[in-house]
């Protein structure tokens, strides 16, 4: 089964991401957003950032995590394409983002939304559907 797949949405981007555990779901959701963002990075040495994100539940944590990435990309002029979540509970995560300086065109995504969002437990692990505002 793919780590993430696109879902039809008229105006924006939507995807379904999966993971064997919460940490992997969070990593794959970030990977999906990075794929849809189409941002271009410069061929320069890679950068790494450490982040810590909180939320009142899994859904809020997932949205806050994705929006943290967008915030850092926009304010640091960097594009991240690899994500390593080292710690994840329902309300807290620690992660490392790896990427490179932006080539000028940043992510086309404005924000990750809570629309119809639910982090579900499945026999294989976790699954979530996320709508991104473009």
């Amino acid at each position, binding site marked *: 089964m793919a780590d993430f797949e696109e879902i*039809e949405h008229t105006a924006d981007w939507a995807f379904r991401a999966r993971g064997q555990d919460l940490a992997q779901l969070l990593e794959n959701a970030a990977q999906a957003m990075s794929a849809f963002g189409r941002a271009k990075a410069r061929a320069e040495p890679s950068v790494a950032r450490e982040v810590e994100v909180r939320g009142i539940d899994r*859904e809020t944590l997932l949205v806050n995590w994705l*929006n943290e990435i967008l915030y850092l990309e926009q304010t640091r002029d960097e594009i991240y394409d690899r994500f390593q979540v080292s710690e994840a509970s329902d309300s807290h995560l620690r992660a490392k983002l790896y990427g490179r300086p932006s080539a000028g065109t940043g992510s086309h995504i*404005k924000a990750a939304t809570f629309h119809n*969002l639910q982090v579900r437990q499945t026999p294989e692990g976790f699954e979530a559907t996320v*709508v991104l505002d473009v």
Partner: protein
Amino acid sequence: MLSKHNLVRLTEYVWEIPPTFREDMRVPARLYADEDLLDAALGDNSVVQLVNTATLPGVIQHAIAMPDIHQGYGFPIGGVLATRLPEGVISPGGVGYDINCGVRLLMSLVPVEEIKPSLKEIASALYANCPSGVGSHGPLRLSNSELDRVLHEGSRWMLDKGYALREDLDRTEEFGRIPGAEAAYVSDRAKERGRNQLGTLGAGNHFIEVDQVAEVYDQSTAARLGIHPGNVAVQIHCGSRGLGHQVCEDYVSRFQKTVKDYGIVLPDRELVCAPFESTEGQEYFHAMACAANFAFANRQLLAHLIRSSFEEALAGQVSNFHLHQVYDIAHNMAKIEEHNVAGHSMRLCVHRKGATRAFGPGSAVLPDDLREIGQPVLIPGSMGTASYVLAGTAGAMQETFGSTCHGAGRVMSRAKAKKMVNGAELRQELQSRGILVRAGSMSGLAEEAPAAYKDVSRVVDVVHKVGIGKKIAKLEPIAVIKG
């Protein structure tokens, strides 16, 4: 599943979903559409999203969808929802991430033939001078206190700095400054994201377009707005950039807990809200007003950059190329307004998500010279298609809390558009139709292909026939600048 059978046809173009459709609905949901536009609306989740908004606490009369309704991420795009104050709520997700996304129309007294030989120079100057694309930086570097002044003063700050004309402010919704802005409620992150973005266009469906006046439907009103057949016009479509996105994110995330504190149960977590008069509701409103003022200032600075670009390309070749402002309107906003509901004057919080204020003649909030004709309403079409200038009407005041449609409305997903349309071919096709294109991203161009949108003319015809907007003039593009 929602289908046509769940709708009651009230008149030829007005449809209603009664509150018995779902037990959490507090009021009916109403759609303005012809049969084809209704079928398009029923083709995705947008009508369910409309029904969801009818559940918000304090909602009054009916939840409304304009004929350009399409699926959003909480409210449908093309939605209008009013809540009665003091008990009604304000919803950050109802306003959306691009707070005060809107349209500005500038008009010249120059016939299009006179500038045609310089059109390439104009398009190139616009593309060079008006930064586009995501995360682009504008020409100003603001200190913290200057940024706070922009958030409090909007277009007025631009006037003080020489980037606006006095008459630009008179021709801007709320005179370019929403009352109630308090920068203390805007996070440092939001300020950081917005600091360098004043005077930038952004990406997605945002654009600058050079147009010609193709048709005039109401000669005398058009003439009073300085709109004459064959003349050159410029439209700007953009919003509050990263600052607005962050304000929305901050409050949608925070309100996930707030709704629990107030015992508000919702069908979708993006609809989170707080009573308008509560501490949380007020704080969001102060922050939203800041983002709205930032967006007015942003479009004002872009207007200044566009005027400079015209000067760069036309000075010495064309005389009197000045661009005067017809109007600037918001189409993502929550506003505090007085409306007459069932014979009673009420103070309401009117959410317009992809919908435009359309105050009719006589409205006290319009400047003297517009009071007789009603507020100008700007309806941009999809890329490469016509746009319209309308005027607000008494019908809109009676039926839709002084609101009308905002654009064409998407019918096709971005993914499908990219599969069906090749960006470079589309640019070629537009150029063969006499429309110059300057775009940063070919795939971005493909996503915005005209085929991905409804026919704006049909949308406008519905609001005109129903009487919630009056057609004044039609514009057709000759150059498009996109991120």
